[in-house]
């Protein structure tokens, strides 16, 4: 069974196979020895089965996207799973028809041309029905995709990725392939008869038998060529993500670890970078999008890296708020990828903090709580004062570690891609904290909190002040009554997505008043616009992001906007028309509130707004 029209497909498919295998081997060889070991051990373990399950769920059915956006999920699932159904069906069909499991791959793909009349057996009828159903499913997904390109709002997306030429070519052929298949099969049905529910209908489009005879071969040629060109373009376009994503899911399940350095053509990073489908889910969740800034989102960053283009502007400008990582349906570690890129870009950065040796007095005093307000605490005296008053009120013994001088926790250096050079800061801060003989470290800064908990390896537990205040409320060392003021809570990126602390701040606010629901909150919360994640974003752009975030926070007209990060508070309060408070300030201000008096309190509060 052979016809020359299969050649374009065979060539395209073979080239793709060779290129893919060559690239994968090259990437795998670039892995760290430890990771290679993990791959070898993992290969014949249960993790492989788990990975296969996940491949089915995520690469084919796209359940994660489905949960975020059902229509978009259906689009991806019908394209991927429908195609998968076609491949499986083709295999079964040829196997059943020839009795051999192994046949040339083109035989299954162009089966209808070679064997137009198979309806003799009932099993073939079933298979035929199944194949046409699968094709219909794919086509339905495709039509949504076309609509999405033209009118993105239809699928509930505010933004869709802008594609470069290579991707557009691949996209064009991908779109052509399935309609061509339908046309070719319909032509064959029109000539020879046969076909199931779909092609019997579409074959009538050919009007006359002569037309169909005349068009049959050209259509099969076109289908084969389209398919061949798509496969040829695949390893060089974003569609490389289709096979790579599956490999990456396997690698993740086998437990590979992040590798040092930044090389998009080497090791685990290569698989991560190339498994991005450029689907654009990261665009919609990006806080900068709402401010009309469409230049540094993760999809663009990955594309730039993959294409070997200059990615500096994109890598340095992002706010690193983590919203894209949280939403990424493929689970690419976008945040660390970006920081790796930054450390590669700024590898010549040269800092020297040896001056910190012996610069500060080490106190050794036994205390319950070591309070650390961090660099930003100094420009938010109200927060610091409020926390201290609350600790006094609860009768907690504490020492304010950095009342007079502080050393940065090191996270800002890591965010600038200079994590290696933050060692001295970490070491010195750890000495200071350990020197206190405290039982618990409480910090008012989410940035410090995240870094203390992940990088410091301290001998005492560390809590963010919102968590500690909630403990005090729970153990009734602090007592508050519910008032009727309405609060909108702004999740700081580093505390929410960064440290997974969403509930304690809300519990606190719920204790003293009402919590207003927001259209973007918790892990979808918007960035205040001025975290230190961005290196280069210009001030006006930051202010646009802040303004957009404030719009969301003010949408249900709360009495106060409340946050738990000195940086967020500082940024929001500069631009907000509503009063902005730290959680600690709210808890302190509610001290005298009782149920009866809360009305009068509200009046006072509104006077405070414009002193």
């Amino acid at each position: 069974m052979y016809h020359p029209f299969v050649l374009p497909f065979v060539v395209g498919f073979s080239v793709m196979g060779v290129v893919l295998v060559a690239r994968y081997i090259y990437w795998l060889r670039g892995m760290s020895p430890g990771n290679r070991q993990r791959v070898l051990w993992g290969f014949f373990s249960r993790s492989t089965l788990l990975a296969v399950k996940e491949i089915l769920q995520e690469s084919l059915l796209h359940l994660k996207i489905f949960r975020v956006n059902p229509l978009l999920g259906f689009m991806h699932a019908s394209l991927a799973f429908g195609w998968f159904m076609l491949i499986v069906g083709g295999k079964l069909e040829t196997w059943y028809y020839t009795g051999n499991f192994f046949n040339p791959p083109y035989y299954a793909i162009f089966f209808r041309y070679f064997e137009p009349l198979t309806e003799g057996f009932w099993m073939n009828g079933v298979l035929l029905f199944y194949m046409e159903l699968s094709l219909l499913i794919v086509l339905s997904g495709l039509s949504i995709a076309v609509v999405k390109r033209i009118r993105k709002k239809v699928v509930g997306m505010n933004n869709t990725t802008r594609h470069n030429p290579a991707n557009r070519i691949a996209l064009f052929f991908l779109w052509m392939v399935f309609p061509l298949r339908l046309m070719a099969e319909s032509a064959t049905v029109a000539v020879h008869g046969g076909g199931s529910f779909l092609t019997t209908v579409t074959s009538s489009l050919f009007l006359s038998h002569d037309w169909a005879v005349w068009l049959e071969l050209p259509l099969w040629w076109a289908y084969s060529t389209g398919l061949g060109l798509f496969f040829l373009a695949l390893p060089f376009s974003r569609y490389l993500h289709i096979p790579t994503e599956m490999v990456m899911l396997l690698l993740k399940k086998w437990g590979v670890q992040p590798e040092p350095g930044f090389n998009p053509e080497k090791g685990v990073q290569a698989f991560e970078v190339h498994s991005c489908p450029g689907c654009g889910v990261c665009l919609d969740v990006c806080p900068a999008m709402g401010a009309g800034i469409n230049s540094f989102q993760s999809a663009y960053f990955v594309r730039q890296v993959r294409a070997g283009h200059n990615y500096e502007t994109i890598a340095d400008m992002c706010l690193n708020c983590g919203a894209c990582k949280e939403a990424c349906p493929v689970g690419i570690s976008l945040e660390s990828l970006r920081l790796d890129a930054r450390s590669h870009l700024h590898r010549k950065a040269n800092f020297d903090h040896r001056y910190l040796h012996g610069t500060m007095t080490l106190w050794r005093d036994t205390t319950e709580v070591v309070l650390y307000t961090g660099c930003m605490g100094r420009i938010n005296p109200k927060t610091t004062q409020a926390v201290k008053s609350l600790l006094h009120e609860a009768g907690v013994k504490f020492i304010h570690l950095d009342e007079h001088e502080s050393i940065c926790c090191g996270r800002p250096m890591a965010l600038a891609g200079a994590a290696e050079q933050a060692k001295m800061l970490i070491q010195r801060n750890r000495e200071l904290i350990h020197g206190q003989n405290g039982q618990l470290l409480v910090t008012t800064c989410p940035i410090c909190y995240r870094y203390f908990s992940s990088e410091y390896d301290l001998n005492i537990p560390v809590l963010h002040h919102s968590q500690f205040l909630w403990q005090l409320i729970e153990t009734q060392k602090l007592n508050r009554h519910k008032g009727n003021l309405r609060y909108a809570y702004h999740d700081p990126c580093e505390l929410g997505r960064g440290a997974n602390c969403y509930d304690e701040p809300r519990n606190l606010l719920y204790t003293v008043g009402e919590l207003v629901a927001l259209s973007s909150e918790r892990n979808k919360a918007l960035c205040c616009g001025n975290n230190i994640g961005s290196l280069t974003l210009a001030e006006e752009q930051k202010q646009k992001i802040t303004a957009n975030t404030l719009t969301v926070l003010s949408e249900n007209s709360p009495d106060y906007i409340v946050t738990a990060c000195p940086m967020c508070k500082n940024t929001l309060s500069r631009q907000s028309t509503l009063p902005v408070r730290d959680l600690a300030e709210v808890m302190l201000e509610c001290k005298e509130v009782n149920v009866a008096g809360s009305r009068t309190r509200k009046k006072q509060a509104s006077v405070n707004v414009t002193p």
Partner: protein
Amino acid sequence: MSQQKVAIVGAGPAGLQAAATLVSLGVSVEIFERNGSPGGHLKQWHALFPHFQNATHALNPLLNGVKGITMHLGSKVSEISHNGNTWRLLSDDGLKYESDAVLLTTGFNLFDASRKEEYGYGVYPGVVTSAQLEEMFNGQRPWPFDKSLAAPKIGFVHCVGSRDVKCGNRFCSKVCCVTAVKQAIEIRKRFSDSAVTCFYMDLRMYGLGFEELYHEAQVNHQVQFIRGRLSEASPAVSGKIQVKAEDTLMGRPLKLTLDMLVLMVGMEPAVKLTAQNNHLALGKPGFGDGFMADRELNTPEYLQVTPGLFVAGACKGPASLPDTIQDAKAVSVDVYNFLKTKS
């Protein structure tokens, strides 16, 4: 021909001066003022730079000039609309007024110092604004430190809320530098053993007599001028305030304990004019909303296409009292000429 009418929004120095000028030119005027009394910021002021003229001496002639003119106090104009040759004003308390021209003299608000939390305004009682200091001079507000204190130490911070992108105010408020110098001298006169320090970014002594005042402060009153911004104010023992700053000329950090810290708050527009479907709304300005541009300069569209709407005084941009009064007179003549061509 009936007498032509002009509505003036705002009874600060600009509004009062414009009213007096227009009346003297034979125009009928009514003034709308959202506060309970006329005079604007001037009525809280104690003395004026550069000659320490008593503020009431400047205010009284303005108030005398508008005797007999209808003034709607406590009446906040919220929208104005334009229909043919007639202007309609609508105030929050339901007042409606028709006129042949409208003159906006809505002036400025002082920057809300609590927006710069690091300076501790609203946190520490010793941190006050320049306007509050004038009230202390007037005896309307108690001093935040014990008046019997032998040698009070007082600091002034320039440019609070001015020249500050982070506050949305790129502009220089123009009058704070010389006001700080004037207030520093007044402090030195009142408390002979006091020590006064001014923290400035650039000293802008642009007017006649201003440089002389600066000279006097430095030579006769030993006011220290430090070129540098304050980083933070923190509490020190017995209600004092410790400030940290960079002395940029010395290139070294500096710390100082003070009994009172005065923040030289800048000017922000008091009213924002927005064009809506068929009227102009007078609302509260938001972050970064600038002043109403001068008619001759970058004239916004709504002023160009709506003949009969005029703007005078500090609502066009930071201005000193003499500037405001001059401008009000000049714009009044513009209004008069406009009415003349119409009739």
